[in-house]
């Protein structure tokens, strides 16, 4: 049988590992006990005894008076106690997502996916889910600032207006430095601004750009654009260092397409095959059927070899192909067998590499099929070379003004520290940032913009695919939309961006449709739906081989250590560094939160006696080590997005900033370092590593099969189930559910481990952040954790992601041991948790074989020792009023989002109808970009969940214990070449 392991220690010596795990746990407990020695259990009991007596006696005093303040004029669409959903658009850090914003009693509290969008297709990412917390960030600016002091908009307008006019008159250059702008209306505003001030130059800048692709396409197609990748149409997907399931370009859309092409439920379903060439183990690589750990410098060599090999196979080439460092014969075969149905993508920012990728896609006939050039992705517009020009202009003082909007180059550009002084030195430096950041700290003026949930906007993430963003709360602080600021300075007396957007849509976009003749109805209709997709793409562009020859001949040399800098799934480019949800989200592969780390190859670590948490230096920068199975030999991977200095109370000083390691080569930023100097040290650094927490003690948890085996027998890999069912006897009567029987299914084949569900659950269920120290103490509160297992060769293992939440067992081991009946079983198959009854014995935690119960060791709300979002009035505004905020000393766990179940059931009952299948969606299910989770009523034989449970691939965790879980798992299917 395949051996599954979670860490290398466990693989090497399971028994010793187990012992050390227990020791660690005991140590952690002891440390906490010593720390808490100040107040012992006895003290607690004494205090408790006295306070009960006192409370009872003084009870004759009145309770504090609660006020109930109704509306003066109730808005028609608002019903107190019922949530409203507004369609909007998220666009931050080059990531677009069409969303629905849940607003309860005037407060946006949750982001959901919008199913009407054909871009994000109801999916979201962890970053999108966490964006609602950014609204309630203490680090936000409350007023405009002038050199750090609060000022008024009048003063700002007066000064900036005059200053701009003066610079314009003197013909001194002003640069409007923005992130990529996908809003057509905003582009119009900038145009208007530039017309008024011709000295203003607009420069889009991306922290992690796609300049390589843009430049390559400019050569191949004559236009700088990112094509539309259709992953769902591809039978063979080849990724070269592109983390397209994690952070690359439009990852939510790609996950949708990718997992749609891999869903095998019924006979006849087909599955794509995914090859991944990459350095570190990314989410994408962990899902690949065939994964090659390669050095970043080798990627182009392999691509070149592949190109020549394909040419040769097609008979149009006689030159010998250069040798590839890895065996790509199988890959070439597969690609040739699937011409027009394959897709090759590369995450490289090197123009030459991208040119070869273009050539391969052209050779395979993928253009027009899996890669569409008639529809472009607009989320990345930054051209790195332009920014370098800008820096040199700053240096020779030809730029007199800098207006920064949505960018933070002081932090995320390799020459950040230099930029800091340069920006501070110009005549007019201004930032529109809504919260503290490094660049804003260097600017003289701060004109804060509202959060996207407080703003009007529109977006065109892909050409011809429009969407709207609308405010869901009135502005919390004295902020003003940048568009209005620009219009004001351009001379408009009372700029109103809402009217501006509306006008643009009525005049320009309403022409693209003929459903609504009245522009106002068109506007209202689109605003309600959130998206407007007229559907007509431009014609496909013609490919030319321009620049290919040069690209093929320029082979890269490799020497010494190669360090890859990647965007982490949680923090991405680091702009949400002050978001505690994202900081605490364990990395999907390494399972480390609250730090970045150097992922080193297994063999090298062994040879040098390194362990996790040892410290090494890379070019003199100290970094803690994580031994990453699957890391290519001779390489190290480190995440960007950490090491913020001016982010706020949560983000400051977490991890190390790796942006200074980025270099600029051929006018494009290069996200890997060649020939790095790597030294070991004797130091150690503690990491919040949760990969081995909540262990299920080595039982067969993951079941897998190969696609070819599944085609022969869908039960393959799941033979154990039958074996277990033979022993399916119990002394207890079989549980009976008269009405509903809720159940959930997890398709392990679809789940890619993106961790969207963890944050979605956190937002929905008021799950508290506990900080690095407590995560180290194995107390992370997430109700849904994603276990990650490895198997086979540690040098290049296979990886499995398995979301585990409360299994809602019908024979639940936790229920029997509760001395106060705080966790009984419901009539609908839910394993209930009554917080108000729980006395905190933790027997249930110990008795749960799935380790899904979480104990509140401390009061995490309103506690200065846990100074995260729940320790401020503002941060607590994100709390869901439909879910109890748990206090110290009680156990909590996944409830299948019972508040949503009750809400929909109530609605059905009031309407006098049955609950429809799929109507109830727990938070994790609603926005899963991979559609890996299914929820429904097992008592309804026609429901989707019943079909999943009847599927041959379905099994339950630890079936042999006869706990009868209500959560089913579908075996992992890989499509390895047999």
């Amino acid at each position, binding site marked *: 049988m395949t051996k599954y392991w979670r860490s290398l220690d466990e693989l090497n010596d399971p028994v010793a590992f187990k012992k050390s795990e227990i020791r660690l746990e005991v140590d952690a407990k002891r440390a906490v006990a010593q720390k808490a020695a100040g107040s012992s259990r006895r003290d607690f009991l004494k205090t408790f005894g006295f306070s009960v007596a006192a409370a009872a006696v*003084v009870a004759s005093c009145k309770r504090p008076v609660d006020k*109930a303040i*109704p509306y003066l*004029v109730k808005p028609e669409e608002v019903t107190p106690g019922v949530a409203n959903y507004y369609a909007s658009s998220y666009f931050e850090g080059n990531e677009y997502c069409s969303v629905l914003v849940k607003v309860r009693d005037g407060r946006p509290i949750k982001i959901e996916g919008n199913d009407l969008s054909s871009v994000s297709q109801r999916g979201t990412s962890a970053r999108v889910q966490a964006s609602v917390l950014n609204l309630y960030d203490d680090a936000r600016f409350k007023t405009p600032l002038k050199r750090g002091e609060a000022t008024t908009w009048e003063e700002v307008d007066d000064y900036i207006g005059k200053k701009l006019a003066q610079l314009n008159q003197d013909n001194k250059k002003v640069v409007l430095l923005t992130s990529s702008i996908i809003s057509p209306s905003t582009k119009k505003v900038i145009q208007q601004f530039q017309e008024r001030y011709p000295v203003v130059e607009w420069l889009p800048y991306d922290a992690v750009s796609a300049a390589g692709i843009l430049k390559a396409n400019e050569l191949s197609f004559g236009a700088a654009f990112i094509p539309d990748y259709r992953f769902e149409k591809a039978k063979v997907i080849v990724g070269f260092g592109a983390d397209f399931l994690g952070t690359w370009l439009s990852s939510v859309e790609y996950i949708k397409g990718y997992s749609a092409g891999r869903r095998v439920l019924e006979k006849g379903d087909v599955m794509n095959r995914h090859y991944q060439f990459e350095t570190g183990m990314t989410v994408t690589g962990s899902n690949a059927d065939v994964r090659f750990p390669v050095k970043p410098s080798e990627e182009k060599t392999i691509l070149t070899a592949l190109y020549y090999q394909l040419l040769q196979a097609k008979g149009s080439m006689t030159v010998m192909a250069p040798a590839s460092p890895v065996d790509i014969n199988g890959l070439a075969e597969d690609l040739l067998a699937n011409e027009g149905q394959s897709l090759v993508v590369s995450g490289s920012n090197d123009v030459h590499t991208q040119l070869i990728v273009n050539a391969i896609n052209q050779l395979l006939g993928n253009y027009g099929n899996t890669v569409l050039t008639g529809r472009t992705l607009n989320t990345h517009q930054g051209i790195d070379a332009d920014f370098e020009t800008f820096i040199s202009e700053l240096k020779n003082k030809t730029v007199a003004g800098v207006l920064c909007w949505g960018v933070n180059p002081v932090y995320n550009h390799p020459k950040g520290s230099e930029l800091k002084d340069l920006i501070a030195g110009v005549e007019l430096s201004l930032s529109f940032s809504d919260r503290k950041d490094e660049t804003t700290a260097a600017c003289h003026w701060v004109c804060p913009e509202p959060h996207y949930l407080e703003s009007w906007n529109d977006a065109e993430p892909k050409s011809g695919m429009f969407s709207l963003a609308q405010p869901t709360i009135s502005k919390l602080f004295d902020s003003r939309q940048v568009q209005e600021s620009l219009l004001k300075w351009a001379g408009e007396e009372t700029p109103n961006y809402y009217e501006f957007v509306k006008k643009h849509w009525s005049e320009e976009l309403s022409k693209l449709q003929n459903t609504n003749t009245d522009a106002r109805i068109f506007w209202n209709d689109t605003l309600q739906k959130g998206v407007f997709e007229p559907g007509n793409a431009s014609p496909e562009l013609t490919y030319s081989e321009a620049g290919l020859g040069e690209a093929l001949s320029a082979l890269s040399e490799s020497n010494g250590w190669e360090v890859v800098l990647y965007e982490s799934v949680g923090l991405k480019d680091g702009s949400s560094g002050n978001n505690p949800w994202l900081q605490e989200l364990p990395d999907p592969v390494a399972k480390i939160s609250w730090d970045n780390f150097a992922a080193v190859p297994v063999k090298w670590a062994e040879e040098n006696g390194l362990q996790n948490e040892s410290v090494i230096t890379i070019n003199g920068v100290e970094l803690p080590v994580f031994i990453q199975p699957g890391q290519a030999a001779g390489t190290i991977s480190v995440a960007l997005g950490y090491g913020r200095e001016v982010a706020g109370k949560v983000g400051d000083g977490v991890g190390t900033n790796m942006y200074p390691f980025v270099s600029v080569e051929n006018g494009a930023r290069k996200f890997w370092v060649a020939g790095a100097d790597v030294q070991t040290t004797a130091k150690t650094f503690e990491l919040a590593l949760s990969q081995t927490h909540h262990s299920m003690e080595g039982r067969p948890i993951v079941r897998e099969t190969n696609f070819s085996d599944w085609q022969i027998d869908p039960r393959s890999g799941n033979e154990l189930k039958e074996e277990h069912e033979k022993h399916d006897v119990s002394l207890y009567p079989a549980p009976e559910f008269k009405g509903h029987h809720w159940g959930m299914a997890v398709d392990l084949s679809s789940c890619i481990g993106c961790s969207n569900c963890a944050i979605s659950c956190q937002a929905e269920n008021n799950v508290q952040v506990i900080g690095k120290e407590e995560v180290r103490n194995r107390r992370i509160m997430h109700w849904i954790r994603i276990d990650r297992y490895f198997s086979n060769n540690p040098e290049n293992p296979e990886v499995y992601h398995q979301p585990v939440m409360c299994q809602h067992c019908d024979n639940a081991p936790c229920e029997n041991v509760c001395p106060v009946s705080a966790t009984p079983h419901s009539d609908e198959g839910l394993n209930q948790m009554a917080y108000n009854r729980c006395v905190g014995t933790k027997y249930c935690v110990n008795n749960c074989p799935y380790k899904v119960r979480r104990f509140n060791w401390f009061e995490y709300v309103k506690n200065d020792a846990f100074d995260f979002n729940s320790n401020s009035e503002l941060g607590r505004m994100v709390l869901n009023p439909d879910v109890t905020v748990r206090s110290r000393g009680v156990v909590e766990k996944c409830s299948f989002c019972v508040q949503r179940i009750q809400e929909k059931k*109530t609605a059905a009952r009031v309407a*006098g109808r049955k609950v429809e299948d799929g109507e109830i969606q727990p938070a994790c299910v609603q926005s899963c970009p991979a559609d890996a989770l299914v929820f429904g009523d097992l008592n309804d034989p026609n429901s989707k969940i019943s079909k999943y449970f009847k599927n041959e691939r379905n099994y339950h965790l630890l079936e042999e214990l006869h706990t009868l879980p209500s959560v089913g798992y579908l075996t992992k299917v890989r499509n390895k070449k047999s």
Partner: protein
Amino acid sequence: MRKYFVGKMLRKNLPVFIFLFAAFFSISNTIYAAAESVVTDGHSQEEVKRGERFFKGLLPANREFASCVSCHNLNPVDTLNWNPSAMDLALKFVDKDFASFQASVMNPTGAKMEASHVNFKIAEEDLKTVKLYLDNLAHKGPAPAKPTYFNLILFFALGLLLTWALVELIFLHNIKWKVIPMLIFVGAFGWQVKMIVTDAIKLGRQENYAPDQPVKFSHKVHVGDNGIDCMYCHTTAENSKSAGIPAANLCMNCHVLIREGTHSGKFEIAKVVEANETGKPIEWVRIHNLPDHVFFSHAIHVGSGKLDCKQCHGPVEEMDIMRQNADLSMGWCIDCHRDTKVDFEGNGYYEHFVKLHEDLKSGAIDSVTANDIGANDCMRCHY
């Protein structure tokens, strides 16, 4: 014999009793001392005092009309007083000049007020002092409600008693029959336990809670006398968790015309009108307060269960002052769920319960209660 014992007990514990009484009075004295007056606009304390005497009816000596305080009470009262309280008046006129105050007192508009202010004679100078007194009151705020120490005193007295009994039993042996201190000990201790238990059970519950509201809104007048349906104002009861407190503009549907009430005259309705005009919402005092870990839904009970509002809220149509009718304890909820029958055939939702339908048909059961369909599951209300 008995007298002797009591006397001895008193003698022995005299210092303790004295201390206790002294402590009690010192507490109450400090409370009164805290309420100092504020003199406004350079008017002397004397004038304010004089105004107070007029208000309270101590002046003028030969008065033929009712004193102000006889209608406009100074402290909160248990019984219903339709007239605006002194504090109400003070707040209303604090920002207005004397002329409008005078006009309002001497030339009342509205039938109710005309009737009660008839024969009202007071010199302008004196009325000015009344206004001063009221202004002073508005700044000072109402006198603090006296806390009741009865339970506390009783509890400590019982504690002393049982301590004495214990000391007597173990050390003093002054009483011949040991059974007497023993009985006293058991009695005192038992009473203390009873106090703790009853109060602990009541903790957080407030049956019959009927606080003063900012507007003297009478459900009796609106529901009982005028027969307005509950759902006319509490519009969301059928569809939302919350039944909803009506927005102030809803009141204006009728009160745009009806500006004077039979009991309260114009004063209370004017507050609602003012709220609509000034945009300052009315801050009602919440009566039904469930703990934060309880999620009750009106929609289930009213929208789907078709319960009568009265079943939980009691005879609202008879309540001038709204009060909490049930104790809203969990036992009260669960008892009702056990007995309440569900309209099983009339609602399409219950088609989910196939087995129960079969049982009903076959006659195995004759009805379905809320409990049978899981109304008493923990996670119905706690999540």
